């Protein structure tokens, strides 16, 4: 059984302009120990989808799903008590900006131990020992003295290592990392990703990595989901999605990034014309069709879903016709 199963998740947010359909039917599943990367641009609904799992959505937002199961627990009808037992314990989150997600008024030792003391029957000493052990695993030297420090005394890279250690305090089954390295320097980025990946394989956790950086995705993910306008438009193993991207949006994204060997310095980069559609209105058909070079009249009628290979799925009609012709 998959660790996490999402079927047809939708999130609507009432705004002054009307109902915003932020997530419009996302289905995915994640096995234990695997890393799934969700890529997409701002507003594509990738962060909201993950917040929906933790039930941390803004209060006005309305979450619906045919199924939302984590570790056998149905999250849609879980009580607040059950959800509190899951959050930080069985599933943990790492946010983008460690300065705003750490409490500036408490030492990192207090904040690390709190997680374990809240969820387990352990003594302060045991919690402290585990905090030191995890900080050391996350590559922090002299971890014992760091416990007495406040977040402002640490650099951005160190803070993110503290965040990772905090997420691991209860040995969760699932880690949701929302842009964990976006605020960091390139030199630190690779180190943090390495720490995440090593700890993940050591503790056998599954990870959902949310990012807009295709470089990060390519290097760390097992599976990739590409989101556009609240929907998954392409999912599959990272190797397949990157070598044979099926959806025009995925291809467009890849042409946008300057890549040595593929793009020529000083020449124009590929660009996706137009803008993301307004999600307030009811959208019919493929949301990408107005920016797509291959759109046809049929694209306006229905949102397509199909399997390219058994595990590589692309939601595009033109991919379908290519498949039929072959």
């Amino acid at each position: 059984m998959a660790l996490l199963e999402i079927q047809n998740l939708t999130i609507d947010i009432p705004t002054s302009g009307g109902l915003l359909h932020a997530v419009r039917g996302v289905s995915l599943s994640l096995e234990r120990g695997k890393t799934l990367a969700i890529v997409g641009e701002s507003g594509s609904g990738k962060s909201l989808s993950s917040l929906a799992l933790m039930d941390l959505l803004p209060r006005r937002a309305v979450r619906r799903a045919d199924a939302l199961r984590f570790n056998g627990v149905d999250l849609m009808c879980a009580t607040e008590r059950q959800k509190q037992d899951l959050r930080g314990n069985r599933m943990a989150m790492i946010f983008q900006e460690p300065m705003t997600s750490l409490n500036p008024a408490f030492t990192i030792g207090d904040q690390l131990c709190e997680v374990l003391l809240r969820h387990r029957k352990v003594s302060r000493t045991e919690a402290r020992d585990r905090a030191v052990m995890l900080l050391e695993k996350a590559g922090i030297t002299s971890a014992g003295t760091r416990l007495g420090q406040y977040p402002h005394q640490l650099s951005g890279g160190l803070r993110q290592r503290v965040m990772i250690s905090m997420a691991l305090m209860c040995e969760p089954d699932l880690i949701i990392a929302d842009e964990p390295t976006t605020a960091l320097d390139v030199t630190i980025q690779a180190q943090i990703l390495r720490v995440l990946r090593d700890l993940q394989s050591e503790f056998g956790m599954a990870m959902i990595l949310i990012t807009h950086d295709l470089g990060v995705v390519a290097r760390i993910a097992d599976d990739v989901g590409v989101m556009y306008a609240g929907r998954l438009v392409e999912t599959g193993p990272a190797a397949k999605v990157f070598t044979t991207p099926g959806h025009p949006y995925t291809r467009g994204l890849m042409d946008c990034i300057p890549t040595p060997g593929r793009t020529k310095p000083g020449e124009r980069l590929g660009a996706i014309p137009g803008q993301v559609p307004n999600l307030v209105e009811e959208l019919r058909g493929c949301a990408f069709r107005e920016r797509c070079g291959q759109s046809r009249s049929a694209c306006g009628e229905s949102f397509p879903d199909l399997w390219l290979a058994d595990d590589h799925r692309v939601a595009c009609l033109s991919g379908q016709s290519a498949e039929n012709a072959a």
Partner: protein
Amino acid sequence: MSETVLELSGVCKTYPISQGMFRPKATLTAVNGVSLKVERGEVFALVGESGSGKSTIARMLLGLTPPSAGEILISGVPIAKTNRRKVARRIQPVFQDPYSSLNPRKTIADLIALPLVVHKIGDHAERQSRISHMLDVVGLPKRLIDATPDQLSGGQRQRVAIARALVMRPEVLICDEPTSALDVSVQAQILNLLLDLKNEFGLTYFFISHNLAVIEHIADRVAVMYLGRVVEERRRAGLFEDACHPYTQALLESVLTPDPSLGLPENGLGGSFPNPISPPSGCAFHPRCARAESRCKVDSPPPREIADGFASCLLLNR
């Protein structure tokens, strides 16, 4: 044939840092003896980690803060002796975050016209025609002329920022991380626009970024900064194919290209950026350098000429 537009010679910038009420102030050296020349029509890129002094240099070039030592010359004339407005006519900035660099209460027309108003250029009719010309140039539809920034997307806002910078017909644009806050597809549009504008108006760019893929795409010459010093300055091809300084090499190794067949790189840099208030002795990079020798802790490396630039590393002598 080539003409130097901007020149920094031995520029330093130090800031006094309060250590607490009764302790003496410490000195933070943000920029430490930087000399470089930017030729007309080229894209000169500055790259480095946060805290390396990139943005301090940008602020000094814009005349927003004076250097503590050394001189900045615009076409051979020291910036300190030039009227601030004259500097602004020739050098204009494009900042990182178009959400905070545009006044949310002003319309797009007001924002673009502000430099013209400040410099008392043209009457109302001429300003209007310049504004609509600028909207054309940066690819914004005319209907946005009375919109406010909150009605615009991030890419459109950055286009407004570029239009505002160009309305004075400057020679040099200082672009401080102009695409870092944008999505990749919008980043591509803005980079394309910047390259088009450069050819159309014969602009010179002083381009600051920490994204090496962007720099490799757009730059002609690149200077790598570490802790307030330029450790390597090369032409683009030379730097990206055959970097000399260990720090540049580590930076290049850290870049994550979208290639799933490659794993995570090991740059060997370690996590800790040194404290800029008490920088390491000798070569400032030695505590993180995998190839450091004992003399690196003592001797400060002089810049050493290479075919297409220079690098400052003691190990280059062998």
